[in-house]
């Protein structure tokens, strides 16, 4: 078994720079978006002006993010993307960057936006430390929540993709969501996922399914 973790695309290790010589700090792009956030929703904006709203997280998990979109009904392109974030510097910067990316040019279509990956955002930011990875996952999730909201409001129910969790290991009660979280936090091998979740420890029968999920989420987020 391979215990060595491959570097995650778009991340820059943990708290050191890529050459490990200096403590990590934000890239110039991250700093620019953190100190001059783009497209955030001003206090006085009216929710009724938007036709799709998304929300993810809560203060209990450290970050909360809400997004408001204006989608052109004819083309399903995102014409406006506004947001508010309770979170750390990386969370603010990656939301700001995502807002720029989905509205660039004519604006992404909802199909295109759904394909936006966390590491696309991180690459545009010039990298984030590995343990800040969840910050950029957060805006990706809020975006997809808003996309679903748009389809719901326009009665296109067949296009809604929900992410209900299902139990993978009935003994440890670990769900596919738990495995997804573990992979996002950098556990890319079965051992590391087991360390985080205890999945399959009393129930080795579920391990093939777990390995398949790890592969799936690695592919999904890290390409």
């Amino acid at each position: 078994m391979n215990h060595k973790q491959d570097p995650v695309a778009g991340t820059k290790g943990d708290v050191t720079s890529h050459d490990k010589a200096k403590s990590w700090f934000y890239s110039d792009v991250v700093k620019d978006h953190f100190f001059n956030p783009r497209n955030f929703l001003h206090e006085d904006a009216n929710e009724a002006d938007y036709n799709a709203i998304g929300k993810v997280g809560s203060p209990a998990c450290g970050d909360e993010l809400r997004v408001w979109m204006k989608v052109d009904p004819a083309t399903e392109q995102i014409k406006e993307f506004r947001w508010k974030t309770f979170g750390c510097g990386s969370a603010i910067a990656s939301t700001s960057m995502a807002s720029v990316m989905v509205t660039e040019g004519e604006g992404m279509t909802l199909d295109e936006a759904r394909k936006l990956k966390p590491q696309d955002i991180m690459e545009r930011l010039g990298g984030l430390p590995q343990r800040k990875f969840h910050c950029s996952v957060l805006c990706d999730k809020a975006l997809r929540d808003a996309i679903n909201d748009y389809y719901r409001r326009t009665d296109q129910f067949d296009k809604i993709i929900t992410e209900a969790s299902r139990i993978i290991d009935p003994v440890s009660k670990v769900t596919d969501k738990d495995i997804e979280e573990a992979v996002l936090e950098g556990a890319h091998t079965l051992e590391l996922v087991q360390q985080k979740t205890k999945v399959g420890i009393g129930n080795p029968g579920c391990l093939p399914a777990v390995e398949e999920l790890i592969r799936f989420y690695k592919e999904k987020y890290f390409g």
Partner: protein
Amino acid sequence: MNRQVYLDHAATTPLDPRVREAMLPYLCLKQGNPSSFHSFGKEIKDDIEEARRSIADILGVRSDEIIFTSGGTESDNLAVLGYARKNQKHGKHIVTTKIEHHAVLESILHLERKEGFEVTYLEPDRDGLITPEQVEAALREDTILVSVMYANNEIGTILPISEIGNRIQKWREAHSRPELVFHTDACQATGYLDLNVEKLHVDMLTLNGSKMYGPKGSGLLYVKRGIKLEPLQFGGAQERGIRPGTENVAGIIGIAKALELVQANREAESERLVHLRDRLIEGVQRTIKKTRLNGHTTNRLPNNVNISFMDIEGEALILYLDASGVYASTGSACTSASLDPSHVILALGLPYEVAHGSLRFSLGHETTEEDIAYVVETLPPLVEKLRALSPVRVDEKYFV
């Protein structure tokens, strides 16, 4: 050029130039090993013992009750693990609080998870106080160790150690339980409070050089004569075999000098810092709405200000302040690898969003009126800016 204001003295203090002077000979000229028999070694051995005596005098104890270590973490680990392992035949119950430093908490957690100890974690009140009655109520016939910090590193609340110690002493006598001992981590209290061990009624006490303008990598544990500890490391007779390894001579000379200096000046410095501390608290409360002062208002370290800025996340504010030359810290979320919010603020019964928004400003020797005025002037627009970005609105019952 911005003003540079360092307000993170609770994390670590700069080295006092007088301490540096005292240490310098031991970093270059005086280089013998104190365990050697030749005169080089002998002279250094004598200097170490002189340092030990000077510390013992300040604590009001005997020299052979001082064990030098590498810092606060090691001292706490040695006290907790060393005492519990050596004395477990007398009982396997430990009493501590939910707001201890991780050096104590994680050691105790290890004993609980891996070595079969039972632990009572006392809950503080909303201000971070623990009462002697709470401690007494938790004592059992098999309790061998109580560990309660002197002053909290995050919120600055000063705990009634002397009263708790007194209560434990009486209980010990009434129940004929000489094996029950009381440890306190006094790292944050060193520069401001009375360290006389007899008045505090403690049996073990932790100090850390790098919180008292001394060198990093220096610390000590006071251990009352007669108390037996299991060593954490092996391989020599230094420090009576309890903490073997060649002595960190410059560190020992440094911590002794640092302790002498901060204790000699502690009343004047406390008075000066209480004034600055209260100006900062008052200034923030006057200029920024929706804040909460965490920790006790008066039973509080002279150098500690811990404030939750509602609706925003601490790390983001730290970074905005950093860009303005103000260096503060947060016990919250993202700065630590765990991403967990402060266990101390949560233990006060406050919700996650209040914990995530907490900032600690810890003042020190070089802090001036101008520094405080600068912080009070710098903060409001930064808080305003981050609040504009935030979707969270904390319930107003938590403001104060």
